[in-house]
Every structure is written in structure tokens, then in C-alpha cells.
């Protein structure tokens, strides 16, 4: 490896831990990175900001050696290098905590870590080291527990500890707080600050501007694959950073003043259901009502029964007691998804690729997927193609779906655009009841704002809206009442105005126990 002192700033006392210059990376049909510069100093917490599709993930994958740049240079501690692959990156001292964990549920914590670590595989020694590291950084973790019994926050700790065991000098965190409670976020920030004070650099990817302001020393902003600028988040306001990110002002959703609450549209009474998933959470006497004209938010950490509840509400999982789920006055527990849809239900599932939409099919066909019933797109058992195309076109126009056309495959759309398409498809069916799961998960700020606005408008037009989300900010921004799901129980609902983030956070389970058997009582 050739030794090259980095450029003119070599005279400066501090050599950047990692310096990228003019990184280019193209994929067929799009330029994901276009001359991106990034410089991370030792011990710095550096934010990487950008909308979805801005090229953050691509850049990070290049740093971690998963992708290779088409052009540009990478210098590690002043030395020009070529990161051949992830193991090369790990040997340099780069650790990465992915947004989606890659853990084996049936294995223990230590076994999972052993799988990702090269070299020493003596289990008892490894367990001791895990305990040592997790205690040192305030990341309590029992190495002998099986992963399926852990909360998401605990699972993330595994990934972090796995990185820490390698003594990283640069830790990359991809959207780490999207699955954590506020209390867990505080703990995580403590750990990160501690690491940074010990000289470990951190590259922190997030779209939560408040967090970045709170945590990071520097921010690099990407837009459309290009380097837009760097800023000091402490000097900026979230609004000004958002402006850099999307090159435009974000429209804040306008919460309506007093919700015109109408009659009960969805009534769930004493719904108990055993999960189909062996690692799932059973529903325990879930009871709530959603009224016309209101947005009802259900908070909670993933895996506390939300999936089971959503399946029972959408009709993908039938409920033996038909009266446990009542839609528009009609007992619906034993009705399938299509029957419920004809009662006025629209549903936006959490997973858009492969649940809410079929990636391999065109947008027209995806419009037909859920729209065929209420939009009457079937005639004599045949698909009415002109009408379907018209409907798809209308969705794209009304909800600003950016695509090459309605014949584009769903997989060709970015996450945010596909989500807008799905939300639009459901809203244009004029539902009486809209159920949306994680409506803005992984969606950029601009798209999230327009999705929020659409949901608020829908409620204002008299529909009942149920939003299940892990993002508390989102629920506080749009919902009129909030309840918390924990271990299959649903807390009593309370008006958003009369509660605080901390209160909800505590209900979500500060000790993060999806496994714990706790009954939550809310006065």
C-alpha cells in the first residue's frame, strides 16, 4: 500500500480518520454518488444527512467495502487505501451497525456475536469479554440469552457490542434510533458520547434532525447524490438543516384544532388472539375505539403485538369472536380482507415491498391490487385496464409520485415514492376507516410531511384514521389520541395534548421488555 500524505491540509495537526474525495458511484439509471467529499476527524460524531435516495446508504456501503466507488479516493488516517470488502474495513477498524439487524433468533447473544467476529471463538472467553464490554459502556446484555427473547433495543446492543469487541476507530450507525424508546435513545447517546471521548469517530446516519442537533459535532449533507455542504448542527436549526437536505422548506403538518369527533367507526373489544408466529406476541384483551374524524395513534416498540393487531384488523388473520372487531357497526372479526374493504376499510401495511405492493408488477397492477373492489375495476371477471390505468394515473398525480410512468415496476420506485403511491391508492378509495402502519418508515422528510398532511386531511374529511407507529414524534405531530402497545396489551388511550413524550416512552417500557409479562395500567 502506497503511503500518501493527504493533500494540502497535511500541514494541519489533525489528520482525518477517514477522508473521501470525489466519490462517484453509478447504478443503472441513476447516479447515487456524484463527487461526494467527506472528512471525519478522530473522536468526532459526524452526521450524514440526506433524504431517502440522497445516496447516504451508497456512501456508507462504499466506506464499509460492500460497494466500490467508480471514481474518487479514500484515505484512512492519511493513507490512501482501497477498501476491498467488509472484512478489510473491519481490519482497518471500521465497525458498522446496520438499520436492519442480521441476527439469528434461535441462537444466543454470544453465538450471534461469534458468528460475526473473526478469530477467537472460545465461547466462555467471548462471553466474558461481552460482559466486560457491555458493562463498560453501559449496554447491559446477557450473552447467554436467546435473541428471540430480546427487545429491539437489546438486539441493537448486540450489534453495537459486536463492533466494540473489535476496538473500532470508526463506528457507522445507520438510523440507530428508529426502533428505540426515548429512554433507550438517551442510553445510546451516552454510549456514543463516551466512545467519542475515547477517540472513536462515529458516522451517524439519521433523518431525525433533533437528534443530530443534540448529538453530532459536524454534519455532511447530501442531496440527489451530491455533496451539498457541511455544517455544525449545533449552530443550525432543524428547519435550516431540512432546507439544506431537500433544498426547500418542509411543510409542517397542520394539526387541526379541535377534532370533530363523530361516531365510532372501528371498535375493538376485548380482542385476545394467539400469535401465528412462534416468536410473536399474543394479543391480550385489546380494547379501543376509533371515531370518525380523529387520528388514533398506537405507539410501541416493534414486536409488542402490533403486527398481530394489524393482521387481526386487516382481516389477514381472522378472529374467532366476530364481535371483537366491529367496523362501521358490522361485526367483522370473521370477515376476510375483501369483505372488510367493502365495509370501507383501507389498509397501509408496514412493509411496502411484498406486502403493500408487489415489487415485480407495474404501478397499474399495484393500483388494481387493492383498488379493484371499491373502484370497480373488474368487469365480467376481466380487468378493466383503461379504468385501472386512469386510477393509477390519478394516484400518481394527486400524491406527487415521481416515476417514469404508470407502467414502471413498483420495485423501480424509491421507498418514499412507493409509500406515497400506496397511501394515495388507499386514500383515493375514500375509506371510512384508514389503518396505516409505520406510514413514514424510512421515508424522507419531504415525503413524510406530505403523507402526514394526507392523513390529517383524510381525518378532517370525516374518516377514522388509525396510525400504528414506533416514531413518537410522528404520533405526537398528527394524532388526536395515543395509546401504547406493550407485550400484547394496549394501554388506555389519552388525548395527545394531555400527555408527554416521557410518559408515553415509559409506557412503551423503559426496560424494553417485549418478553416481560407486565400489565400496564393507565389511570
Amino acid at each position, binding site marked *: *500500500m*502506497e503511503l500518501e500524505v493527504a493533500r494540502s491540509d497535511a500541514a494541519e495537526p489533525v489528520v482525518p480518520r477517514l477522508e473521501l474525495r470525489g466519490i462517484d458511484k453509478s447504478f*443503472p*439509471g441513476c447516479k447515487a454518488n456524484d463527487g461526494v467529499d467527506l472528512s471525519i476527524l478522530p473522536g468526532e460524531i459526524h452526521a450524514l444527512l440526506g433524504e431517502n435516495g440522497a445516496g447516504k446508504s451508497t456512501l456508507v456501503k462504499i466506506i464499509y467495502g460492500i460497494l*466500490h466507488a*467508480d471514481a474518487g479516493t479514500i484515505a484512512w488516517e492519511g493513507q*490512501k*487505501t*482501497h477498501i*476491498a470488502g467488509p472484512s478489510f474495513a473491519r481490519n482497518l477498524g471500521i465497525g458498522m451497525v446496520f438499520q436492519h439487524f442480521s441476527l439469528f433468533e434461535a441462537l444466543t447473544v454470544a453465538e450471534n456475536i461469534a458468528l460475526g467476529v473473526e478469530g477467537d471463538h472460545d465461547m466462555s472467553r467471548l462471553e466474558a469479554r461481552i460482559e466486560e464490554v457491555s458493562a463498560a459502556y453501559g449496554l447491559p446484555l446477557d450473552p447467554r440469552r436467546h435473541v428471540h427473547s430480546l427487545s429491539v433495543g437489546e438486539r441493537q446492543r448486540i450489534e453495537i457490542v459486536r463492533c466494540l469487541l473489535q476496538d473500532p476507530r470508526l463506528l457507522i450507525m445507520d438510523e440507530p434510533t428508529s426502533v428505540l424508546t426515548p429512554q433507550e435513545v438517551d442510553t445510546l447517546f451516552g454510549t456514543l458520547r463516551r466512545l467519542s471521548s475515547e477517540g472513536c469517530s462515529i458516522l451517524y446516519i439519521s433523518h431525525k434532525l433533533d437528534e443530530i442537533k443534540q448529538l453530532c459535532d459536524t454534519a455532511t449533507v447530501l442531496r440527489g447524490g451530491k455533496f451539498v455542504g457541511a455544517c455544525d448542527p449545533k449552530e443550525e436549526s432543524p428547519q435550516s438543516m431540512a432546507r439544506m437536505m431537500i433544498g426547500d422548506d418542509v411543510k409542517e403538518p397542520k394539526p387541526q384544532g379541535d377534532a370533530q369527533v363523530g361516531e365510532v367507526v372501528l371498535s375493538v373489544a376485548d380482542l385476545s388472539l394467539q400469535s401465528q408466529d412462534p416468536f410473536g406476541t399474543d394479543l391480550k384483551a385489546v380494547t379501543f375505539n376509533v371515531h370518525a374524524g380523529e387520528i388514533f395513534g398506537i405507539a410501541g416498540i416493534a414486536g409488542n403485538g402490533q403486527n398481530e393487531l394489524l393482521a387481526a384488523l*386487516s*382481516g*389477514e388473520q381472522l378472529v374467532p369472536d366476530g364481535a371483537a372487531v366491529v367496523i362501521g357497526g358490522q361485526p367483522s372479526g370473521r370477515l*376476510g*380482507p*375483501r*369483505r372488510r*374493504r367493502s365495509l370501507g376499510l383501507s*389498509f397501509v*401495511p408496514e*412493509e411496502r415491498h*411484498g*406486502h*403493500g*405492493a*408487489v*415489487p*415485480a*408488477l407495474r404501478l397499474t*397492477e399495484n393500483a*388494481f*391490487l*387493492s383498488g*379493484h373492489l371499491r373502484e370497480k375495476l*373488474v368487469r365480467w*371477471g*376481466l*380487468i378493466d*385496464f383503461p379504468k385501472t390505468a386512469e386510477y393509477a394515473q390519478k394516484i400518481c398525480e394527486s400524491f406527487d409520485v415521481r416515476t*417514469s410512468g404508470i407502467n*414502471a415496476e413498483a420495485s*423501480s420506485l424509491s421507498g418514499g415514492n412507493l409509500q406515497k403511491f400506496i397511501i394515495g391508492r388507499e386514500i383515493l378509495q375514500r375509506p371510512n376507516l384508514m389503518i396505516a402502519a409505520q406510514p413514514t418508515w424510512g421515508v424522507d422528510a419531504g415525503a413524510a410531511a406530505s403523507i402526514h398532511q394526507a392523513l390529517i386531511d383524510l381525518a378532517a374529511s370525516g374518516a377514522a384514521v388509525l396510525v400504528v407507529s414506533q416514531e413518537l414524534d410522528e404520533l405526537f405531530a398528527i394524532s388526536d389520541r395515543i395509546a401504547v402497545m406493550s407485550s400484547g396489551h394496549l394501554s388506555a388511550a389519552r388525548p395527545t395534548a394531555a400527555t408527554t413524550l416521557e410518559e408515553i416512552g415509559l409506557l412503551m417500557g423503559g426496560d424494553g421488555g417485549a418478553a416481560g409479562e407486565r400489565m400496564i395500567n393507565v389511570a
Partner: protein
Amino acid sequence: MLLKLEPRGETSRAMIYLTPLLAILLTLIMGAILFALLGHNPLEAMYAFFISPISNSYGLGELAVKATPLILCAIGLALGFRANVWNIGAEGQLTLGAICGGGLALWFYDSESVFLLPAMALAGALGGLAWAAIPAFLKLRFNANEILTSLMLTYVATLLLSLLVHGPYRDPDGFNFPESRLFADSALLPVMVEGTRLHLGAAVAVFVVLVAWLVVSRSFIGFQIKVIGLTPAAAGYAGFRHHSLVWLTLLTGGALAGLAGLFEVAGPIGQITPVISPGYGFTAIIVAFVGRLHPIGILGAGLLIALSYLGGETVQIEMGLPQAVTGVFQGMLLFFLLACDVLIRYRVRWSIGASQEARGTAS
């Protein structure tokens, strides 16, 4: 990494339809080279393989006769394959069709009714349908893999046929040969073109192709089948009923295979024999895939595979080449088709990987 497959942004629609033709062209070129290497004049050999079998009306009729069962079975299988229902027991369902429909012909041996043939067709279809209902039930009730159950039932069907032709179906005047009586005229499919064996079944097959095309490309049912095959979770989201679609695809496949079996015994064979199919039900799996699970494609693929049977026989007789040539051609065709498929969806990149590799080692 010198060679890399990169997905192309958008798949060209025209190319999707052109690939089978391209694959055929490549097969022809390779075939010519192969014949040349074997010491034959490639043009002559190619002529003998591809042209001479269908150079007269009788040959064309034979082509259609061979393609009919292939196409009928493949259409039914393709419907299932689209929904991830892997029925590979068309051979058994075909056999049951022959047993049930043909049994009716024997039972009403003296009948001259015009209703006999339609009744036989119905019985044949029902026989195949019933045979396919077994794997469907086992799959939905006990989660038994339909690949295994449908395949195993094929052997049961063959043994059942053997039992019948050695027993109840045996021709009383047949000197104990394990064959049934020759069917009466009222039980035979009318020949459509004088001087050939082209029977009414071929027309039915074309009709089935058209109906299947309508179902696959235009109908709500076809859409449900497609979605359930691509992403079962999305099908559940839309409320498409998995159970119903498994039943539908398996029963349709069974009925079409049963019909194909009946057409064999009431058409070219004219009686029930211990062996009524040279593996049409299995070859139909290749036909379905070469035809891209699309009815029109299956029509073409069925004719092509039928031609490879005829061609193989011709070169065997005329040039003394082994029958294995048929298999070689079928294999080449499949290989080229798959290769073309890959190249249309993906682009091969040499330079990027190579240059980076070079940079990696140089730095």
C-alpha cells in the same frame, strides 16, 4: 471479480418476445456445428431434423398430434407454476383421464350415440381432476408437498392402468394381450384433415390456449394467480384466498391433463394400451417453462418440442444418428433460452470490476 451481472434498469418488452426466437436461432447454429463435427453435411442434417418431418401434410398432422397433449398438459401446469403450485404429476393425471374416459368407451362399446365422445371427454377431464384433487387436499390439509405427492401418484396411476388392461379392460377376443378392444367409431375423435392423423383434440388444444391466454392476461383470476405466485403476503393483503387458488390451479391442471390422456386413447391410439404416453406429462414441464408459462409461448414451445421428437426420429432413420439427438436439441434450446433470459435482464460488466481489481492491487 472479472465478470459481473448487473440488473438492467428496464427490461425491454420487445426483447422479452424476441428471446425465444433468438434462442431458436442459436440452437440452429449450434446444431449445425454439432452435425458438422459428427461428419455430416450440416445443411442436410438440419433439413432432415427440422424441415423434412414437416414437409408434407402428414408430417404437419403428426406435429400437431404430438404437440396436442404437450400443450394441454403444459397450459394446466403453467397456471399452477404461476401460483407456486408445483404439480409435476401431469403424467399421472393424463393416465387417469385415459382410464376414465376410455373406460366409458369400453362400457358403452355398442353405443353409437353422438353424446358418447363428449361424455368420454368429460369423464377424462374429471378423472384427471380427481387425481389432482388428492395432492391439493394433502397440501392444504396436511401441508404435504405437492411435488412429492403428485409425482408419486403418477406411479400409482401407471400401475392402475396396468392392472386394468391386464384385467377388466382386456379385449375378450385379444388372445390375452394386455390391450383393450379397439374403440368403436363413435368413440373416436374425428380426423380433421384427410390423409393425416390430425384429430379434433388439436382444435380443442388451440381453443384452450386462447381461453388460457384470456385468463392469464386479462382476467381477475389470472391476476390473483400471478400475485400469489410473486408475493403471497401481498395476495393475503388484497384478500386473495390461497386455498381456493391452490384448488383451482391443481384441479384445472388435472382436468386438462386428463383431457389430454383421453385425446390420446380416443385419437392416435384408438384403444387402451399399457403405455399411452411417452412421458408427455413430464415433457410438458419443459414446454411450460420454454413457453415462459405464457399460453401463446406454450403453443409455440409445444410445437417446437414436438418437432424435436419428429426430427430425432427422422435423423435416426435417415442418417443413423442416435435418438439422443432429440434430447441434445431440447437441452440446447432450454440452455440458450435461459442464457438469453439472463442477458436480457442483466448486463455483463467486465471493465468496472477489472479496473477496480487492478487499482486494488496497485495501491
